[in-house]
C-alpha cells in the first residue's frame, strides 16, 4: 500500500462552457518528485491552482495526507505545510530579499496578537538566513526583489516557499526561462530537498531536461484528461504521449 501525501480524485474544472480539466486523478507519493506535464493548454496550471486552492474545482476532491482540503481557503494551505511558487513570478517587488523570505516564514512567527507585534523569534530568523545562504542569495540580502535578475528572482521564490517549511512543495514551471547551467543547479537543489529533507514535490514543467532527470513519476495531461502516467522512461516511450507532443521536446530529451 503506497503512502500518498496528496490525492486528487475526479477533479473537474469548468470555466463557463469550457471544460479545462475533466475527471482527473493524481496521487503523489510521500517523499517523491512527481511531475505534471502536457502540451500548452492541457489544464496543468488549472489543476495546479486547484491543488494550491487558488481556483475552486467544479467537482472532485483534494486530499492532503488523507484530509479533505477541497474547500480550504488558499491562505490556510501554508499552515498545512503546502508551499507554492508562481508561473509568472509573484515576488514582493519593493521589499528586500530578506523580507520576502521572512514573509514566507509568516506561519511560523506565532499566532497571538502579542506575536503579531513582537519581533520575530531568533530561530525563524536563523532559518531564513540559512535558506538565503543555501540558495546563494545571501549577498543580495538587502537588495530590492525587483532589482534581481531573473534567475535570482526564481531562486528567491523558491527560498520564500521553503521558508514555509513545506511538506508538499508545488512548483509551477520552476525551470522556465533559466539557462542550462541554472537548470542543472536547480536539478541538484530539488533532488537534495527531496532526498535529504523528505519534501514531497509536485511540479508542472515544460523543460523536459529537468523533468526526466529528477522525477520519480510523471503524469501527462492533454485536453484536460490524463493520457499517461509512469516513470520518466515509460512516459518517454508512450505512443500517445509522443503523439500529443508531436515529437517535439520528447525526442530532444
Amino acid at each position, binding site marked *: 500500500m503506497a503512502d500518498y501525501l496528496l490525492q486528487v480524485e475526479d477533479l473537474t474544472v469548468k470555466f463557463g462552457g469550457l471544460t479545462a480539466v475533466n475527471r482527473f486523478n493524481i496521487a503523489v507519493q510521500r517523499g517523491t518528485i512527481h511531475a505534471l506535464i502536457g502540451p500548452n493548454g492541457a489544464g496543468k496550471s488549472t489543476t495546479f491552482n486547484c491543488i*494550491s486552492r*487558488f481556483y475552486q474545482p467544479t467537482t472532485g476532491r483534494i486530499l492532503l495526507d488523507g484530509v479533505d482540503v477541497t474547500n480550504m*481557503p*488558499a*491562505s*490556510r*494551505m*501554508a*499552515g498545512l505545510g503546502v*508551499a*507554492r511558487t*508562481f508561473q509568472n513570478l*509573484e*515576488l*514582493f*517587488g*519593493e*521589499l*528586500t530579499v530578506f*523580507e520576502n523570505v*521572512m*514573509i*514566507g516564514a*509568516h*506561519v511560523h*512567527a*506565532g499566532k497571538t496578537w502579542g*506575536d*503579531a*507585534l*513582537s*519581533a*520575530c523569534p531568533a530561530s525563524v530568523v536563523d532559518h531564513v538566513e540559512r535558506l538565503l*545562504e*543555501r*540558495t*546563494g*542569495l545571501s*549577498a*543580495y540580502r*538587502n*537588495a*530590492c526583489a525587483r*532589482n534581481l*535578475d531573473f*534567475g*535570482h528572482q526564481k*531562486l528567491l521564490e523558491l527560498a*520564500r*516557499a521553503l521558508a*514555509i517549511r513545506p511538506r508538499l512543495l508545488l512548483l509551477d514551471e520552476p525551470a522556465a526561462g533559466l539557462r542550462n*547551467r*541554472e537548470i*542543472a*543547479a*536547480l536539478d*541538484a*537543489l530539488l533532488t*537534495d530537498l527531496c532526498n535529504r529533507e523528505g519534501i514531497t514535490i509536485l511540479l508542472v514543467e515544460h523543460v523536459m531536461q529537468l523533468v526526466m532527470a529528477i522525477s520519480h513519476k510523471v503524469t501527462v495531461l492533454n485536453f484536460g484528461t490524463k493520457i499517461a502516467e509512469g516513470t520518466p522512461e515509460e512516459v518517454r516511450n508512450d505512443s500517445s504521449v509522443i503523439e500529443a507532443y508531436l515529437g517535439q521536446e520528447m525526442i530532444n530529451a
Partner: protein
Amino acid sequence: MSDKAAAMLSRSEASPPARWTARSNVSPARIGLLALTTAVLIFLPFVVTGYVLYIANLLLVFVVLCLGLHLVIGETGQFALAHAAFYGIGIYTSGLAGNAFGWPFPMSMLLAGLIAGAVGVVIGAVALCMRDIYLALATFAFGEALQWVFLNWDKVTGGPNGLRISPARLGTLEILSDKQAYPVVAITTLLMLLLTILISRSRLGRSFRAVRESEVAAMAMGIPVRRAKVTAFGLSAFYAGVAGSMFATFSTYIHPDSLGFQTTILVLTMVVVGGLGSIAGAVGGAVVFGLISEFLRQTPSYQEIIYGLILIVFMMYAPRGLFAFIHDKAGRVFRG
C-alpha cells in the same frame, strides 16, 4: 546541497552594487532622526509662545492622522478615503464623553480610538471586498455620508451650530490652554509613532506589505488577505479616532465643516508628498505641509494656488516624496 551547486546557483559572488541595497531596518540615521524628533518635542514649550504651541498641537494631530493613513495606504496599499470621518468620530466621542461624564482624558481618548476603530472594522469588512477605484469611491461615499450625519444630527453633534465641549481633565487637573495641552498631545504622538514603528517592524507589518506587493503571493504565504486589510483599515481608523481626541483636548468647540473630504485629501497629500510607504515621510509630510498651509492661511487664494502648485511640481519631479528626493540628491552630492 553540495557547494558546487550553491556556487552554480548564484550567478556572481560579488556583492550587489550599492544602489540595489534597500534601506536597512535599523540605521544610526533613523535612530538619530527619532531622537531629534523627541528632543524638539521636549524643548519646544520652553522656547515658544502660546500661538506657536497651538500650531504645534495641530501639526501633531496631523502627524497622527498621517501615521494612520500611512498604515492603510502606505503599508497595505489600500486607497481608503474616509479618514476624516473617523477623525470626526474621535472628536465627537471624546467631546461628548467629556461633556456627559467628565471622564479623564486618557479614558475618552482610548474610547475615541476604539469606537473609531470598531466602525472602521465594520466598514472595512464591507468595503475591502472592493479594489482600487471602487474601494476609494465607496469609502469616499461613507465619509461624505458621515459628515452629513455630523451636520444633521443636531441633538447630539449640535449640527451646523457646532458643539461646545468642556475642558479635558484628569483628576483635578483641567486643560485650559494650548500650553497645558501640549504635553498630552506630544506624548500621545510619540506613543503613536512608536506603535507605528513597532507595527511596521513586526509580523503584522510584514503581512501588510505582503498584501500591498502581491495579494496572491501573500495568500500563498498563509496570510489571510482580507483580514489583513480589515486590520489595517481598523488600525488606521483607531489612529484617526485618537487624533480626533487629541484635537478635542485643546479645543473648546467642534464644527463638522472640517470633517469632510477636504481633510481626508489634505492628509492624503501630506502622506504622498512626504513619501508613500515610509514613516518618516508620513511625519515629515505632515509637518512640512502643515507648516506651509499655516503660513499661507492669511491669503486663502494664494494658499490654494501655491498648495496646488506644490502638489503638481512634487508629482512631476519628486514622485517618491520629499524624503526620497532629499535622499537621492544628497546621495548624488556625496558620490560626487
